[in-house]
């Protein structure tokens, strides 16, 4: 049965349609073409013709002209709209006209860069004169590196390599930096949050080195659809950027289905598990031979859903279903990607790792299990299904959370809404300082030189005071340590090192994955069940000091879920303002102490609780920036219990509303609430950034407190439950008036004008 027939069947099934909140059909769209500009080198035109390209899509031509005019350019068009030509054409054209010219391509992951080089080689293969492009990453053999440094016209790499291998050794890349004409940044929307903040600083270092060698490269960026492409590009590159955002590429017919699992217990707002629905839909699609990708939120869910699919599909299809997530080793991932491209693999369950443009070919159906946190991310995920021709399906299965319920009831938000802005925060003190050190290692700093921020001079002085830098007689700051600073800075994880996961089931222990230290506290404590490719492993020992977790394969029917106990301390109030009549919003620095306390054993399939155990691990400390609201307890005549119900409920929904507003993952913001805050005994609610030094999320919540409260209010008020349910105000509120309490607290807290 093909997809179109299956969709017809679903439409005719009342049990199905009862739960479909919205079914949107986007008709097929035809292409808009423009001629290849005259100035393009004849060899390149011939090469394009040889590949069957006689004209360009409108956006490609537009980008080409902008770059040709020497403008930094950001191309924002959907998946599979031929973005790569937008940068390959001007780059190759320039190299054909000036063989000394060089270009640097940056992709967020190694896998992506390999795909790109393959495509680039294909195009270059049709050229009479050689245009050399090479991938330079951790896998590049040593003997090839010298040649790449000297002869590579186009060097394809990733930010990590740029940070750790290329910039600190820029003298070896003299030829590249002297002649660098283009810096291409693909998948630019990935560079947001902590990673983006790091990358923005790496690019500051890159620009600094280009200046030193006298080159002024043009930036060409490509991104999925986001609200603020120009702003993001400017923050990343520090330059003004022209935006091309009208796609001229064709698209097949697309069905977007919003599915809300049925309520199983209306008063609690309990719904059927979205994961179990995904199990049902996915199995059906795969059984019909429809290539399907499902996106879930956590690594554990990847393993769970993949296991379900494997067990439900017919025997013959079992080997064609896979899980895919961060933490798998590269060659394992590569094998899965290849399988998807070849059509060998029919079903894959992934975290957002496959949102990126890793070339997995074009699938027919995508299932998004739970709102991925951003519209941009949702569009990336659904873009994985259906490229230029043919029917495709994007199925969104909402879970019971406030955010999902909000989304499934406001489909226009996803379908027509402006996608969120991608934000980064390159001024995070830790990140900035780390890169300032790296930059000083690379080239001495003049005292008046600015590295992104006004306070550069102060920071340089600080580093000199701590003997990291030395101020020479002419006032310049020089690196003064025998260490290589980039070695201790990872762009991907928090400030700590990773924990590797070692399987000692076999005689020869084997590394099967890794995770960051903070997650290790809750996922790799002793006795935790760690899932890898659907196989459960039990953690036997966690050696935090050496960053190793030893696991062994076990045969169990449960997984584990750990809890953290958190203690908060305000270090410094940066700003505060009134919130309604008797409360104040604050933002400032917090110290958070977290210690994992206990874990629950939860049965597969039924998700029932089988028991629990204690976790003995040291406390983790986090210095960060928080937002908090403090009420005068007397302003509302509630007893402690009511206050607690209202605070907990508000915290739950506010965190979701804030994540929605700030375009971040729920996990990027943590919360805490105290009826009697240790500081002055008043009811207080905290939201704080889950990254040392803060990444601007809590500050934004402080600035936009009223709009965030309004979203929170809508989430609670629009929820069909009667007295408050896990989806709106969180689980476990016994009070029948809970929903009303939370709404009252929100109303008391918003300023008068903002009320509606």
């Amino acid at each position: 049965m093909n997809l179109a027939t299956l969709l017809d069947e679903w439409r005719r099934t009342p049990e199905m349609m009862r739960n479909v909140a919205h079914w949107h059909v986007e008709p097929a769209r035809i292409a808009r073409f423009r001629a290849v500009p005259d100035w393009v080198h004849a060899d390149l035109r011939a090469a394009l013709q040889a590949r069957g390209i006689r004209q360009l899509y409108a956006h490609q031509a537009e980008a080409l002209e902008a770059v040709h005019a020497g403008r930094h350019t950001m191309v924002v068009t959907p998946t599979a709209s031929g973005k790569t030509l937008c940068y390959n054409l001007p780059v190759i054209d320039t190299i054909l006209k000036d063989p000394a010219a060089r270009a640097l391509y940056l992709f967020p992951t190694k896998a992506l860069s390999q795909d790109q080089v393959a495509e680039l080689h294909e195009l270059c293969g049709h050229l009479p004169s050689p245009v050399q492009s090479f991938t330079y990453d951790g896998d590049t053999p040593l003997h090839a590196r010298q040649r790449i440094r000297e002869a590579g016209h186009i060097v394809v790499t990733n930010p990590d390599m740029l940070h750790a291998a290329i910039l600190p050794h820029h003298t070896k890349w003299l030829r590249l930096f002297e002649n660098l004409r283009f810096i291409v940044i693909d998948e630019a929307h990935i560079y947001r949050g902590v990673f983006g903040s790091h990358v923005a600083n790496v690019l500051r270092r890159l620009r600094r080195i280009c200046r030193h060698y006298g080159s002024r490269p043009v930036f060409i960026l490509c991104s999925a659809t986001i609200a603020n492409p120009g702003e993001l590009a400017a923050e990343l590159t520090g330059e003004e950027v022209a935006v091309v955002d009208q796609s001229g590429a064709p698209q097949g017919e697309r069905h977007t289905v919003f599915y809300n699992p049925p309520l199983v217990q209306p008063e609690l707002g309990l719904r059927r598990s979205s994961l179990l629905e995904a199990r049902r839909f996915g199995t059906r699609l795969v059984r019909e031979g429809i290539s399907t990708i499902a996106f879930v939120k956590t690594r554990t869910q990847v393993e769970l859903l993949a296991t379900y699919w494997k067990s439900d599909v017919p025997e013959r299809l079992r080997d064609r279903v896979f899980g895919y997530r961060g933490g798998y080793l590269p060659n394992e991932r590569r094998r899965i990607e290849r399988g998807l491209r070849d059509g060998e693999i029919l079903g894959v369950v992934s975290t957002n790792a496959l949102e990126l443009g890793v070339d997995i070919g074009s699938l027919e159906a995508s299932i998004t299990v739970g709102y991925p946190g951003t519209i941009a991310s949702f569009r990336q995920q659904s873009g994985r299904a259906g490229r230029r021709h043919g029917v495709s399906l994007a199925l969104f299965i909402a879970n019971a959370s406030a955010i999902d319920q909000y989304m499934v009831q406001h489909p226009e938000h996803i379908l027509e809404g402006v996608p969120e802005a991608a934000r980064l925060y390159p001024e995070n003190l830790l990140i900035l300082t780390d890169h300032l050190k790296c930059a000083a290692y690379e080239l001495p700093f003049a005292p008046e030189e600015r590295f992104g921020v006004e306070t550069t001079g102060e920071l340089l002085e600080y580093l000199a005071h701590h003997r990291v830098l030395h101020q020479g007689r002419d006032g310049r700051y020089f690196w003064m340590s025998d260490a290589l600073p980039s070695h201790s800075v990872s762009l991907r994880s928090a400030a700590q090192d990773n924990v590797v996961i070692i399987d000692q089931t076999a005689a020869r222990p084997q590394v099967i994955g890794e995770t960051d230290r903070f997650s290790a506290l809750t996922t790799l404590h002793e006795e935790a069940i760690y899932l890898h490719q659907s196989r459960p492993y039990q953690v036997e020992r966690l050696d935090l000091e050496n960053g190793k977790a030893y696991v062994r394969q076990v045969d169990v029917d449960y997984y584990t879920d750990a809890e953290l106990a958190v203690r908060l301390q305000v270090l410094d109030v940066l700003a505060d303002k009134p919130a309604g009549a008797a409360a104040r919003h604050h933002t400032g620095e917090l110290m958070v102490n977290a210690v994992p306390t206990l874990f629950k054993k939860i049965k597969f399939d039924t998700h029932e609780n089988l028991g629990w155990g204690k976790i003995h691990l040291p406390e983790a400390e986090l210095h960060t920036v928080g937002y908090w609201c403090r009420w005068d307890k007397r302003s509302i005549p509630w007893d402690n219990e009511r206050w607690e119900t209202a605070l907990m409920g508000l915290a739950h929904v506010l965190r979701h509303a804030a994540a929605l507003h700030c375009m971040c993952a729920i996990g990027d913001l943590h919360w805490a609430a105290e009826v009697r805050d240790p500081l002055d005994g008043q009811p207080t609610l905290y939201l704080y950034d889950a990254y040392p030094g803060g990444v601007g999320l809590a500050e934004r919540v402080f600035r936009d407190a009223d709009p965030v409260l309004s979203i929170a209010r809508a989430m609670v008020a629009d929820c069909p439950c009667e007295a408050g349910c896990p989806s709106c105000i969180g689980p476990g509120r016994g009070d029948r008036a809970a929903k009303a309490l939370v709404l009252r607290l929100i109303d008391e807290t918003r300023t008068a004008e903002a009320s509606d």
Partner: protein
Amino acid sequence: MARSLLERLAALERSVGRRPEATPDGADGGDAAGSQAADGGAATPGEAATGTAPRPGGDIVRESAAPPGAGTAPAAGATGAASSEGLWALGFRPVDPSGGVWYRTLRYDLLTVHGRRQFADLARCDLSAAARALGVDELPAERLRFYDTETTGLGQGAGNVPFLHAVARIEGDELAVHQYFLADHTGEPDLLTALTADHFAPGSVVVTFNGKSFDWPLLQARLALWRLPRVAAAHADLIHASRRLWRRRLGRVALAEVEAGVLGIHRSGDLPGREAPARYFAWLEDGRADWVEPVFEHNAADVCSLAVLLVVVADLLAGREPARGAEEWLALARWYDAWQAYDLAARCYTGAAASPDAGYEARWLKSLFHKRHGEWAEAVGIWTQLAEAYPHAVPPLVELAKHYEHRAGDLEAAARWAWEAWARASALARVADEEAARWREVADHLRHRIDRILRRQAAAARVSRSSGASPGTPAAAPAGAGSRTPRAQPRG
């Protein structure tokens, strides 16, 4: 309540487990300071003087007698003087008025004995073979530049700064050691300009120890960084030759080990090289020359040793000094072999095999040499000995099997050796280690060989029965008969 940017940063760094680097008033480096202040100071190494007279000359800023490091103990009495004063006392003079670069020359009479040699040997010895072994066209004594640096860190990154450069060269009847000290980072372009102009003009030949992978590319990187022209010079790196000659004897082939184990140079009170960066940083902090003085000595001693090391290598290669031990003989044999100097190679292989410490390798390599030259009797003799002396060795047996099957045409002997080899390889394949798989493969190959020999034996038996020939004569013309003539095709 507002905290300063710097307080916030310090707290943040602490919270993520990053110890902010020690502050200047911290205890970090204090120990070194104390000990250095006690025995440091402007040393005047007058001990072990060989009596060179002071020489006139514009750039001669310091006369020194003994090679530095060779038994020189620093004189007592720390100066603790301000930077320029301390450097002046050590014989340094500023290169430019800004005082970023300082320079001194140490001069040693060529008759000075350093370890087992004199510097004068450099002018006397035959460097042509050494040139060949070190991969340069020539080693003209007066154009040699023995070069070494001290750096602030490891690796080739742009933040690793060579802060002290030494070039030793023959000037008249002296060995002159020129040292350039980066007293302040600001001066690096001036330093590099002076250094390259003075010593690395076209035609000069740089001699280093591990310089091909460290000092020289680092120098080029510094030139690139400051946008100065690169320098091109022939480069002889002694580390590879040293590894070939002495790896087994020394274990770790670093200059200090070569000095102690081969050159007979024993440094006393020498500063370990890894402490150099900390010394330099301490100098940058307070400008006390006694921090870096031991680094100067260490660095000068290094280039002096390079000169002597080259003499020792050259004499071995030129045959002026007999090799000692199988390892040296083998190293020489392999060089000569590669140069197709077969007589010399043969002599060295013999020397290696005859050496009291000759082991399996020496005799095995000698046998392969004979094999390449078709000297079968010698080769077979060695293989037979090895087969007996080393009950686990497989390759000599394989060679014997091949020899008897293809050349001697003695299928019975071939089968006997092949069976024995197979038994040994199979035994090794049963040992569970990384090599097991390889031995299994060897055993499989031998199995095929044995099968083939048996087939040929059977065929020979049929032929002999039908033709009435007596059994025992070679069954078939040895396949390798045509290759009995010596083949002079050395490998490598």
